[in-house]
């Protein structure tokens, strides 16, 4: 006497996981057992109903925001990791920045301007002559000199030894034409004069601003 199919055989038949020999034997059992046949028909019908009624995907609400949030979190984690690995060298990075030619030039100009401002304040007194008391340039290759003409009532500052500034260097940054806020996904987008997106900003769970997109 043949044993009735067990539960594993029933599911494997339903799911098409049987090989040809097993399938053939199971179909013979089906032919001989109306109760089993009814059960298989009912379960097959259940499977068809499930597949028909349940799509194998469900569109994520705010799908673009879903992707961008993942990218933001990945970028944050990468930055945190980079910051941790560079932590001992942070001081050196700061010094490198101080040594940059543009910084030396800017610092020299600021110091010279300060000196001129001080001198101009003093020159309000007619009894005092024009004099730049001192100048300081962080870059030792840069020499600051001043020349004053009483006749022209002008002071000329001369900075020798500055590195040339490339003509294509962007100094002023981007010009923001306007911004738009999307309340639904809580983002603010900044646009340039020609309508291109410069920045997309959002807020994280702690209400801190987060950069989502940046056009360099």
């Amino acid at each position, binding site marked *: 006497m043949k044993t009735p199919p067990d539960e594993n055989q029933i599911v494997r038949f339903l799911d098409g996981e049987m090989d040809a020999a097993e399938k053939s034997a199971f179909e013979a059992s089906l032919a001989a057992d109306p109760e089993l046949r009814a059960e298989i028909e009912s379960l097959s019908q259940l499977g068809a109903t499930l597949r028909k*009624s349940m799509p194998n995907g469900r569109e994520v609400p705010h799908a673009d925001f879903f992707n961008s949030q993942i990218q933001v979190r990945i970028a944050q984690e990468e930055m945190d990791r980079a910051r941790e690995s560079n932590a001992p060298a942070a001081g050196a990075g700061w010094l490198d920045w101080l040594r940059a030619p543009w910084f030396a030039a800017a610092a020299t100009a600021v110091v010279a301007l300060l000196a001129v401002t001080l001198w101009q304040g003093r020159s309000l007194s007619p009894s005092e002559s024009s004099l730049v008391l001192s100048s300081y340039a962080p870059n030792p290759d840069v020499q600051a000199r001043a020349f004053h003409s009483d006749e022209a009532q002008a002071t000329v500052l001369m900075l020798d030894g500055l590195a040339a500034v490339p003509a294509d260097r962007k100094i002023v940054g981007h010009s923001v034409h306007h911004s738009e806020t999307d309340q639904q996904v809580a983002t603010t987008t900044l646009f340039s004069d020609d309508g291109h997106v410069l920045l997309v900003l959002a807020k994280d769970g702690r209400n801190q601003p987060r950069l989502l997109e940046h056009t360099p």
Partner: protein
Amino acid sequence: MNPDMPSPTAPADGEVPDLDLVKRCQAGDTRAFDALVTKYRSRVYNMTYHLIQNETEAWDLAQEAFIKAWRAIGGFKLDSGFYTWLYRITHNVCYDWLRKKRIESDGEFDDSRTEHRVAAGAEAVPQMAPRPDQAMRNAELKARIDAAIAQLSPDHRQAILLKEVEGLRYHEIAEVMQCSLGTVMSRLFYARKKLQEILKDTYENAT
């Protein structure tokens, strides 16, 4: 796999194969990962939604699954299916959440898991609108199926979803759920018996 069910990873014409994208991810290419997110987000979200039964939590957990996948992708072996690996991560994320929820609620009934909330802007309109009477019958049938699936245990629920909705093979379900083939078959059998018991009148009258 059922013959009418396409392989979850079969690339469409012009689509970059998963393994190529994975290799680029392993080299640090976040754009490639974005492509994988786009490809699998609806499936991953579908899984988290059915397991958690709450849209907001499901959205967060689907995100969490992708973040964990990104962190672990360096160790992904290229000889296995990416989607199976991703589903496994999703499974773990959901089960961790369910475990935590169970501890927090200390066994109390949590009605947020059976409440079907629909977020603003959620996709709720089918692509091809059927006749109103048919649409009503479909919606009613779907609601009954959702309610029946919600009555299954998480293990039975996930087994039946991975089989009937995702179309995974037994060995893939075993890999995702980290159990034996015998356990997969047993879970499928009892999940079907339970659904049959709840839904028999519904689906037999529907056809």
